[in-house]
């Protein structure tokens, strides 16, 4: 109960800030896996880019995630380990900490790159769908990740098809610049979550085949990059763990960086 109140309070705080069109600074939220996690000393630095995590409601699809919902999955360790790679491997001026935003306020418009995890458990309201549509049409980029199998796909569709009822979801062609903007990722593998440690399977549920799908804008640019049947978030989160295979981490970092640079160039 206290946690829910805290989250709601955070929503209000963010919304009021957005009213004044001031860019929100870093704010630590309670996680569900890595709480508490140390805040980097330069967490409040003003930078060009920050890992922006979407705080969405899960509603009736909350399932095992409970009231807090699925949005903080892997949070904040995955975010902070991934940005270390972005800092080291690119010239993007990157913040060491993530930025959490929701679609109830306008703050999201200050962050043209947006990431959401476990979108097989999201449940956007109509207003949030409209806000996301506007965000994407203005030039925002949305990467979603870590959902598996036909059941979660259908849950994902419930919301995303209210964002774009008229735009198809397509497989991204291997020649698309998003796979080549920095790293050539014409050959890709399925990136598993840490359940791989226990099961030895790289797939979950009935999601045996990985898909890199997208929704395009009228100029043929990717607006929504959909990483289905794969778990890049876990690959970032456990990249420092000896049991998690390096080849998956390596692809997840490259894929994430490609998506960021694509979002900043197209």
């Amino acid at each position, binding site marked *: 109960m206290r946690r829910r109140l805290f989250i709601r309070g955070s929503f209000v705080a963010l919304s009021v800030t957005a009213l004044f*069109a*001031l*860019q929100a600074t870093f704010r630590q939220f309670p996680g569900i896996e890595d709480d508490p996690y140390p805040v980097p000393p330069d967490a409040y630095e*003003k*930078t*060009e*880019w920050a890992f922006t995590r979407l705080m969405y409601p899960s509603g009736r699809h909350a399932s095992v995630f409970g009231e807090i919902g699925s949005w903080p999955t892997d949070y904040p360790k995955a975010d902070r380990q991934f940005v270390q790679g972005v800092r080291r*491997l*690119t*010239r*993007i*001026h990157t913040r060491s900490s993530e930025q959490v935003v929701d679609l109830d306020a*306008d703050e999201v*418009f*200050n962050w*043209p790159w947006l990431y959401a995890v476990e979108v097989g458990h999201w449940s956007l309201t109509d207003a949030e769908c409209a806000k996301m549509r*506007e965000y994407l*049409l*203005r*030039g*925002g980029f949305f990467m979603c990740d870590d959902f598996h199998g036909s059941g979660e796909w259908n849950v994902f569709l419930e919301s995303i098809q209210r964002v774009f009822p008229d735009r198809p979801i397509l497989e991204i062609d291997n020649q698309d610049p998003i796979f080549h*903007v*920095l790293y050539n990722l014409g050959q890709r593998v399925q990136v598993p979550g840490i359940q791989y440690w226990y099961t030895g399977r790289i797939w979950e549920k009935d999601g045996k085949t990985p898909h890199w799908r997208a929704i395009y804008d009228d*100029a043929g640019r990717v607006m929504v990059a959909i990483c289905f049947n794969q778990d890049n978030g876990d690959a970032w989160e456990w990249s420092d763990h000896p049991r998690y295979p390096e080849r998956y981490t390596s692809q997840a970092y490259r894929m994430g960086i490609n998506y*960021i*640079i694509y*979002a*900043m*160039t*197209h």
Partner: protein
Amino acid sequence: MFEFLFKYPGAVFQKGQFVLLAPWPLWMLAAGVLAVGGLLLWHVFRYRGALTGGRPLVIWLLETAMIALVLLLLWHPAISIATLRPQQNVVAVMVDDSRSMAIQEGSQTRSAQAVGVLDRKLLAALGQKFQVRLYRFGKEAERIQKTGQLKASEPASRIGDSLQQVMAESATLPLGAVVLLSDGADNAGGIGLDTISQIRRRHIPVHTIGFGRAKPERDIEITDAVLPTHALADSRLSALVTFRQYGFAGQKALLAVRSAGKLLASREVQLKSDGAQQSEPLLFNAGLAGPQTLEISVDPLPGEENRVNNSVRRLVNMESRKPRILYMEGEPRWEFKFIRRAAEDDRSLQLASMLRTTQNKIYYQGFADAHPPDDGFPAKPEDLFAYDGLIIGSVEANYFTQTQQDLIREFANRRGGGILFLGGRFALAEGGYLHSPLAELLPVRLPESKGTFHRDFAGQELTAQGRASLICRLVEDPERNAARWTSMPQLANYNEVGEVKPGAVELMKVTPAGHHATPLLVTENYGRGRTAVFATSGSWRWKMWQDHSDVTHATFWQQLMRYLVSDSPGRVSGSTPRPVLADETRLTIRAEVRDKSFKPVSNAVVEAHIVTPDGAPTSLELTPVAAEEGAYTAEWNAEKPGSYVAEIVAGRDKEELGRDVVVFRREDGVAENFHTAQNRELLEKLASETGGRYYSASDAGKLADEISYSEAGITTRETKDLWDMPVVFLLALLLRGSEWVLRRRWGVV
């Protein structure tokens, strides 16, 4: 009155020389005046009686003046003047026979008034003293025998050319004077200094008689419309329309621009006071590629006398070329993405970009038609100069080698390209530009200190120049446009860029909360090209914080990029000094030819292929201009009215160096419908500079008497006494009378 008082016409005093005919020297006159003055001074003060204060001095002055006048008359003053010998000289009478003389004023046309002046008295009076040669003139002079041959039908009047022609024809004749009857509507825009000098050398006075009202009663006239001669297709253009009106002060009129009858833009303007020049900008999109004939007009108001002068035509070549811009960016950032999107939405621009994604990788975009450079930023002139514009983003100055920095400078200076420097954490002062050769290119003096890049939101506002600039024009109305800018979303960041350099133009300021406003957008011309600073990398918020259908961000960036490249010349650059030949036929076509490094080429073969208004092709060769390397020119006659398109092609050996298109237009009868009020200033100036005199139609009768006083032709010198002028006796009477009256009032008679 003048002649009654002074006995002779004013011309005698203007042209004659004052002389004293008495045999005594002038110093004796001065000594006499001084001596008498001294004597009188002693006398007046010695016997001043009841005169007190300054009164003796007044009496002394009046008496001394009287004595001085008498002494002057004793010295026999006179005027020595040259006069034409009767029946031995020729007087040329030139009558303006152009269409503007057919304008009805009162019950008569101007031409009829001129004929009336001539037939009633002037020709006969002149004929008694001189041989009179009568001419009519329009574009050129033609001798006629009688005034009945005047038709007021010539499409243009060229006073200077016609005068020269008459002077040439009468070179062997004793031409004593020229009488010119005209309304002063000269199509050449004035009389050349050569013509004036030629007339003055021969001492021939040109007397002018003016016809036409000084100003119309109810009329609006466009006096000029300034537009670029060329622009990129689909560009927003600004026409600066200058006009004046009589009789409609305070009323509203519609300023419009049309192409082939289609309205492109219009704006309501309030008319200023009668006769005042009024200049108004009018923005419009001239549309697709190709020569566009634009009609710029003020829609006629009810009761206007002359509606023909409400519109002018201008020719603009909307170019089909797609200028290429190279954008070098030092780090991935949102500004880069949104600039690229704005450029992609513009069909007339090509943006090729190089982005340093990592320390050792560059991501190339927009090089579809050309290979990206192998080794990053171009290091050869022919590679860099293939672009028309250059954008330098968040890149440290020392990222560029010395050679590249020199090339960037020459890109603006020699190649004539446009360079835009963006803000950013590695840009401007932060990027070490202050102490690099590139500092010279910047339109601002960068601050010495670091820490000038701020990731803080800040607003923006237009300066006075920004309000007038096409780059910053989002909506046509200047006030609404300025308000639009201040209500825009804030920038994500900004750089402090120091002071604006002299000669640079500050268009926009950034207004951070709690800090002083600093320059945001500054432009300047540099060499043959231009440079600009846009001291932020945060304009992307204009896109992300406005509705997705809002095009403000794209419009601004497209206009800024077009500013960079629209005047970047190609390797062959053609021009003509006057793209509209108003009742003229002669024009000069000029071309500048350069090689791939944009160095002048002096051994090129340059041809102009001209398509005339009826579609007939013709060619002419341009010849090198002496002492101007790479410049070629040719003179040509535009035989017919209408629009002409000239494609200039330059080659060397078997290689084509480049080509350019020049458009021009010949319009006939333009000046006859414009400036239809009498151009008295021109006629007065012509008369005064040649020793003649301006007459109005009503006092033209005096001309016959005054025309005799001339240094030209066969003359004799006359001496005219001045002592018996009525004014002398009146002056003497006044002096003595004044003294008497004063003495009476002061009681000392």
